[in-house]
């Protein structure tokens, strides 16, 4: 295998794209690639979230920590996050995280004047930067009573450090299934048996063609790899009636975003972060030093 190139050129096909939802196919690559993308989306795409809360007055029924925790979990629009600095390596403020390059300041003032419970939501949160505002939610806060006055500093961070910085609600992929129905063997079954095979799957993968009364694959991707059909077929004494394989190199991704960044942007950012990470490996001195050890791999990493 000396000299063989493992380079592949993955293809992406977008199926569905909404602000907070994306569904796409990723083909001609490995699980490692797909999973790296997923992991980066969850844990390493930076966003902005409230990190420091200074409470002036809090006479609500909820205590300071409770409110601070809830504030932290409010998703903020984070298009700027990629270009912002981490407060820990911000030169402008020596890392105290209070400058415009690495932080955004918020203010929350709420006072309940009547004897009703007052709903305080993210709408009451005033940002000093119009690009970083709370994602529009109908209801985020809980009912407080009385008086609140607080200053909050939002900073850039990644999901690895705290889940509040994770831009992803769900990121998941599945292997594209390949389903073979042994038609000959299927013909030997009665309609009842066919129905029972079809219905053994909890999702609508198979169907019976009303005209030909043949078992057909209705929706391949509805299959959840739950093996129910295979077990059923086995139990009927007809192994091989249905065979299902997972394609090793094509994945169907589902990405849902919290709203901090758009779902499409989330994917792009993830690729960006992934690139940066690879660059970091490629350019680090350790890699050069380890050239002897890894030879080919090191060169490959450096693009040679």
């Amino acid at each position, binding site marked *: 295998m000396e000299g063989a190139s493992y380079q592949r050129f993955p293809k992406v096909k977008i199926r569905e794209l909404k602000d907070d939802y994306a569904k796409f196919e990723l083909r001609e690559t490995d699980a490692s690639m797909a999973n790296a993308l997923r992991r980066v989306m969850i844990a390493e795409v930076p966003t902005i979230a409230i990190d420091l809360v200074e409470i002036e007055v809090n006479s609500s029924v909820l205590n300071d920590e409770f409110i601070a925790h809830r504030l932290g979990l409010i998703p903020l629009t984070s298009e700027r996050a990629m270009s912002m600095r981490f407060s820990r390596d911000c030169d402008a403020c020596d890392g105290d995280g209070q400058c415009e390059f690495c932080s955004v300041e918020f203010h929350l003032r709420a006072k309940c004047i009547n004897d009703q419970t007052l709903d305080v939501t993210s709408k009451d949160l005033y940002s000093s930067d119009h690009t970083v505002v709370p994602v529009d939610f109908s209801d985020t806060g809980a009912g407080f009573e009385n008086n609140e006055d607080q200053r909050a500093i939002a900073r850039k961070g990644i999901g690895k450090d705290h889940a509040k910085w994770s831009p992803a609600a769900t990121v998941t992929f*599945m292997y594209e299934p390949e389903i073979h129905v042994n038609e000959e063997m299927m013909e030997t079954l009665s309609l009842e048996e066919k129905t029972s095979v079809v219905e053994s799957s909890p999702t609508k993968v198979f169907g019976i063609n009303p005209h030909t009364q043949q078992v057909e694959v209705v929706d391949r991707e509805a299959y959840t790899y*739950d093996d129910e059909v295979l077990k059923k077929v086995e139990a009927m004494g007809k192994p091989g009636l249905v065979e299902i394989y997972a394609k090793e190199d094509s994945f169907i991704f589902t990405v849902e975003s919290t709203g901090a960044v758009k779902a499409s942007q989330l994917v792009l950012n993830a690729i960006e972060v992934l690139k940066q990470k690879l660059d970091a490996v490629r350019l680090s001195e350790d890699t050069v030093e380890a050239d002897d050890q890894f030879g080919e791999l090191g060169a490959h990493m450096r693009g040679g």
Partner: protein
Amino acid sequence: MEEAGPSYKEKPSNGAVHVDLDEEYDDDDDMMDAPSIRDFDEVFLKNFCRKASTSFFKHYGLISHQTNSYNDFIKVGIQNVFDSIGEIIVEPGYDPSKKGDNEWRYASIKFGKVTLERPRFWTGEKFSTDNGKEYLEFLPRHARLQNMTYSSRMRVQFTKQVYTQELVRSDKFKTGKEKYLDKKIVETEEREVFIGRIPVMVNSDTCWMSLAEKDDCDYDQGGYFIIKGAEKTFIAQEQLGLNRVWVAGSPNWRVQYRSVHKRKRVYVKLVDTPKVDDIGGGAQVITVYILSLMDIPIWILFFALGVASDKEVVDLIDADIKDGNIVNILIASIHDADQTCDEFRKGWNSLNFVDQLLKKSKFPPKESVKECIENYLFPNIIGFGRKARYLGYMVKCLLEGYTGRRKVDNKDDFRNKRLELAGELLERELKVHLRHAEMRMVKSMQRDLYPDRNLQAMEHYLDAAIITNGLSRAFSTGSWSHSYKNMEKTSGVVAMLRRANPLQMIADMRRTRQQVLYAGKAGDARYPHPSHWGKICFLSTPDGENCGLIKNLAGTALVSTTVRERLSDILLSCGMEKLVDDTSTLLSGLDKVFVDGDWVGICKNSASFVAEFRRRRRRKEVPHQVSFLQLLETVSLACDMQYHACFYPSQVEIKRDTKHKEVRIFCDAGRVMRPLLVVQNFHKIKTLKGGGCSFQDLLDNGVVELIGPEEEEDCVTAWDIKYLFLENDGHDPSKYTHCELDMSFMLGLSCGIIPFANHDHAKRVLFQSQKHSQQAVGYSCTNPDIRLDTLSHQLFYPQRPLFKTVLSDCLEKPGQPFGQSVKGTIPRPEFFNGQCAIVAVNVHLGYNQEDSLVMNSASLDRGMFRSEHIRSYKAEVDNKEASGKKNSDDAVNFGKIQSKIGRVDSLDDDGFPFIGANLQSGDIVIGKHTESGSDHSIKLKHTERGMVQKVVLSANDEGKNFAVVSLRQVRSPCLGDKFSSMHGQKGVLGYLESQENFPFTLQGIVPDIVINPHAFPSRQTPGQMLESALGKGIALGGSQRYATPFSSLSIDAITDQLHRAGFSRWGNERLYDGRTGEIVKSLVFMGPTFYQRLVHMSEDKVKFRNTGPVHPLTRQPVADRKRFGGIKFGEMERDCLIAHGASANLHERLFTLSDCSEMHVCQKCKRMASVIQRSVPGGQKIRGPYCRICDSMEDVIKVNVPYGAKLLTQELFSMGISLKFDTELC
């Protein structure tokens, strides 16, 4: 059976259980014969049951037994205690030196009506003069915040007479007496006096909260007391029922009539006589124990009670005289009587015989024999003839027991037991303290009865503090007066109300306890008994020494209170005849009627009698309500008090014993009762349908009735509605007379809310109900701002479980409206404490071995299982105003001074930290010092820290001002914290894994918790899997929601629901490895499961030190965690190092790092040389080791020894034992 009696059909008992209820006829409805059960829909009836149970809990709540018993005590019990005192006669001291000129004076005191007002504050002169009220309402929250006792003042009417006595001779013909004592009343006083404070049960009729619209806390149902700021509750005491005839087979055959009073106890027993030649020899005779007199021949007592002949006695006994055994015993008994007392049949000979015995006894009674018998032998039965009959009945029981025709009574049977609650217990304790107060009063009054002194006001003698403090001390220390031993105290009657969560609080108040002398004597008491069914939970009992002795009331169990109305009229009208007061009438063949163990009458046809009685009870003709008039007669509370309509359902219980031809009726307190549906009256449900479905309506219409333990034996109860419809061979649904409301109501509160409890191993259910549910962090109260608990926990985001059980469903109450955006209210699931976590059963890199679990750190970041913990610190100073002391220099005061012992940065000038201050370990929480500057501040221990939540300044009624500072700590779960599911599956957090590393499903779901599959096979808790699978179905929008024990869903229903939702039937999921992205080979079981966070947290348990404080005596490290102590390196650990041969390590561990020390030894005399200061020639003084024995400092060398060894040497030396040390160089 005789022909007499009502002439309707008498069904023959055909071998099977005889159901006399069948004979009940329907008169008030147009339907002539009871409609068949088949007219009803099973589902309709099920829904009805649900509704009925909901209304049951709405009507009674969960702690009605506590409040009802207390209310009964307030209404009647207190008065009884004072009435039982009777007239107190104070005799003068008869001290001749004090006699003087006047006559000896006597005093008599009688107590009258007791009044109790609602708890009130006296505001003090300051306020009352200022146009304010003199008294303010004293609410439970005041008591809690001020560490006071929530109590109300008790006043009693008394009549005091002071008189002189004179012996007057009089005309015998006129007065009947030759001389009598003439009372010359000198002085009479009649008024009310304050006699003490009675602790008030929260939410009882006396409590303000019973009137309040809104409780302090939404979860609080009352039923407890507040004593010096601490909440205390009674544990129901299981006692053997008195007032019933007890047949016992060992050590010898005896039949007992028990009573608390020793004098009133009666027992009849069979004893062996020594061999006598002429009468067969070794025969057994019946003797009787009365009035503390042993072994009186039974025949003598019969004749003393006025029986005329032997024949009459035999007729009274009414035993089967065809049986040779019985005849022999009777003949031997007659013979025995003849030998003991000649001619006892004549006149009053037998009575005189008893009289003489009494007079010879150790403590001869003051009364005459006749009075003795009247008052002490079966005191509830009036008339000698009836007493003789009762005695005859006892003898009959004895003979039947002996010949095997009657079963020996089982003391573990619940029908023989009564639960003592607040009423009985307080009555007992109050009696003790009242006696004490009375004694003190008599003593001090005696002194003032000397002729030359004057009697003072009653307050002077009657010390109210005795009762107030006595009761309060009994509550605080928990030592309660013993039920029958005079001077002894019992423990375990009062318990602290624990408030980790609302479930624990209620469970604490539903606990019962059986006192045993010592563990060996418990016998079968620890085992569950069939009679516990529906009354006592079979599962929830603690493990260990109290196993089976402490039990919990079942879900629908109630405890009866005394029914005080007289039953006799109703009994007579039902067909009973009064028991005649003679000894000659023949009553054989008739059924005896007992009320509370006393034989009151006979009836010819017990079946019709019982049926009629039941019918009337169901139609509410039997007393069920303490009449208001009677109430006013006894105790009237302060006039501002309003009575709630107090409806007591028919708590009278009737049992027909066909075998012994007895009918037993009970209306005493302490019986555990439970509601059952009356199958026969099902048709009335339809008439009810329109409106009223309150539980009272159901009771009034006889659809539901309360069944006690004894009556239950007569009922054929279907466990569930479905058994009424189940018809197959060997199962006849028509035999059922009653039906349970729900199958799970046989379980207690904490068991009944466990999903699928019937699928779990009983031990695991016990763990959950007894341990985990009580340790779960939940939402303890809704009024934390006005409480000062030393330690309280609260979960940030408590959730309700996805499933429901019938019990939890019926207990749910409408809660607060949720925000303004959502309409309606969400019910309060206050008995569940935890969160629904997505749980996968998987090995997660082995980090969940041995019952540990892996958690998702992202979930924790988002707030899962986050909790706050509030600890309060209290400091007291003397109240200067109250104590009236001058401001001296050494008076301690709150305030800030520069302290040497800790940081005071967060303190304000008043000595208290500001709200929100972050206090670290070692900081001062409360600054306290004297004027002179000595520091009395309270410092945080090294384990304690937190943010200041609140600062409360308050004062109690004992002249102390105190301050409480609460520190709050927010804790997210961390490694080592304990969690548990609802199935006794506990585990500690073993690893926090980040979200991306968890395996994920197709939907992108990652588990919150991963538990190890090894947790299941040996623990046998499939319930958890069912819960998980069901929860998954519910979360996906399924409609099957109930997981009630015993009536839980079938597996098919659960699997189908999952299948319909598009998931694998068995709850398995295909997962993708989060690290590699590959498909995980095996399917993984995953679903939402209710998990509880338990209070055991690693932060409270970590113990570490390198160096730190040592014990002053031994100089070894201390052990205490709070004092920064070390962990013991014990014997076993030592053995381990020895086995390893790690001697250097061992030396370091046990010597260098422990109490290494030096000692000097004189090599000449081999004794220890101490370091002393001595003068040397030349006038100098030097300090150094010196051997006193050899008088030299030569050859003194220094050795390293453990300080413990040196200490031992010195201690032995002080005892005169000198140790010698051989030393060698090494």
